């Protein structure tokens, strides 16, 4: 599909664990059009996280084709994948993964700095995003002074500060209570609808998956219903 922002064909990933080869992906195929909000569900060990790491440029595929925003990830070197993470991918993790020594704003600025060595004031559209995330008054606080929901919204802001082609969210509501989980999912849907942000969300939670346009299931290293 030419309008796909993500294109995965016969993707395989084999990990070496001790003396054993473990196949985490066994020929996965996936096409994601630009602007889609896609949920990926599946049991533990189905290969969701491996797909997430390969799409995010954190792991190298063993074989197959995988392209993000037209860039062939299989042929990228380590530094090429580093560049991809800076420019095309934003991560949101289950455990928020904010840097504990920096404030919320510091966490956002460090991502901006790493991506393009930019400093200075944030642009107007991003300030609007911070208002949408309802964290504009919490930016001077360090993660330990923020609630789980606030931390996850800061993580979303950090993931989006460099205007990535895709936002990869791995169980973004896994550590949140219902109220905060709903708030985060509302924000993700809002971002998708207002800004056309492409989002891939891994989740175990059917209610969370229901926020997405489409849900695909994974099992045994394959995407079942792409």
């Amino acid at each position, binding site marked *: 599909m030419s309008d796909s922002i993500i294109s995965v064909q016969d993707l395989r990933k084999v990990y070496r664990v001790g003396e054993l080869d473990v196949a985490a992906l066994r020929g996965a195929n996936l096409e994601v059009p630009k602007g889609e909000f896609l949920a990926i569900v599946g049991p533990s060990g189905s290969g969701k996280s491996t797909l997430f790491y390969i799409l995010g440029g954190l792991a190298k595929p063993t074989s197959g084709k995988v392209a993000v925003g037209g860039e062939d990830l299989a042929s990228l070197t380590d530094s090429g994948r580093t560049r991809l993470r*800076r420019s095309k991918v934003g991560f949101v993790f289950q455990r928020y*993964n904010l840097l504990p*020594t*920096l404030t919320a704003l510091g966490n956002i600025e*460090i991502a901006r*700095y790493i*991506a393009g060595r930019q400093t200075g004031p944030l642009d107007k559209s991003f300030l609007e995003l911070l208002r949408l995330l309802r964290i504009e008054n919490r930016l001077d606080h360090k993660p330990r002074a923020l609630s789980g929901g606030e931390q996850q919204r800061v993580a979303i802001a950090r993931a989006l500060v460099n205007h990535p082609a895709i936002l990869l969210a791995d169980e973004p509501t896994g550590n949140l209570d219902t109220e905060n989980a709903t708030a985060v999912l509302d924000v993700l849907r809002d971002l998708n609808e207002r800004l056309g942000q492409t989002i891939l969300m891994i989740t175990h939670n059917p209610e969370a998956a229901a926020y997405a346009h489409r849900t695909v299931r994974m099992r045994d290293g394959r995407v079942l219903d792409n």
Partner: protein
Amino acid sequence: MINRLVFENLRHRKVRTGLSALSIGFQVTMILAIVGLSQGMLKDSADRAKGVGADIWVKPPSTSAIQLSSATMPEKMLDAFMLQPHVIRAVGSYTVPLSGLSTLTGIDYQKFTGLSGPFKFVEGGPFQGKFDVIVDRWYQETYHKGVGDTVKALEKEWHVCGVVEPGKLARMFVPLATLQDVMSNPGKVSQALLKLDNPKETFAVISALKVELPEYKIYSVEELVSQFSVENVPGLKAFINVIVGLSIIVGFLVVSLTMYTTVLERTREIGILKALGASPGDIMGILVRETLLLAAGGWFAGILLSFGANWAINHFVRASIQSVITPDWWPIVAAIAVVASLLGALYPGMRAARQDAIEALSYE
């Protein structure tokens, strides 16, 4: 931005940061204290040599300008020196090494003060009895011995008859004849101090003396003072080098351990930075900056501590050892601290830079 992260990282672990910087500081202090001691003691010796007021020093064969030696020369040679043109005074002194670095110096009071001017007495006065001793103020301050007290040396009891201002030849003076008797070495001195009618004739007189006494060590006061340098004390330069080497090893180990712990503790954060697009060079750069800040903090702390060490040495044990502040060594110890710290950060930094991002992100 990276600098803010580096600063906040160090601030986050205040105690560890403080202890690490202090450890580097002790390394810096160790070097500065050794160098300060070496230079301080040499300066004190040089000052006391200058304080004598002699233009020429004559020492027996097989001695050196600055080493303590038990070698002696006949006191009668002083009369021969007086026959030399331009020599107006020839005074002998007899220095006997005691324990450690202290010495007992025998002088003929009248002749010595005739050469170098009167002593400035803080209390008491010149020798009255055979076993009298004059000490200087530093000796008094260190050992708390004043007029009326007794000092034991060479298995004799010496009565303190006077306390003088420091800066002339020695710290403990006794009558020359008594010391010669005690040492069973009558008629001998360990050096001759010559005063000329015109200091401009110094080299001419030295040349003439060297012809007559080829085996003897004959120095102008300038030559003698110039000998009081680290290079001329056998083994001192090597000793300082050993201390510098040990300091580099200590600094290396401290920083290595600190950074290794830091990297382990921040495994997850390294994973986060990598997920954000930080390159191995970026990760290494963060640790190198943290290391440089620790080294800078340690350097500053070390200089402050060296002022404390300097004060303590000069306050409590000034009679035995002296210390000076050595600002010319501050850039050198800065370089040493930086090199040792960077070496220490190398392995932990490389480990962090190579850390697998996925493993790091799942680190508990």
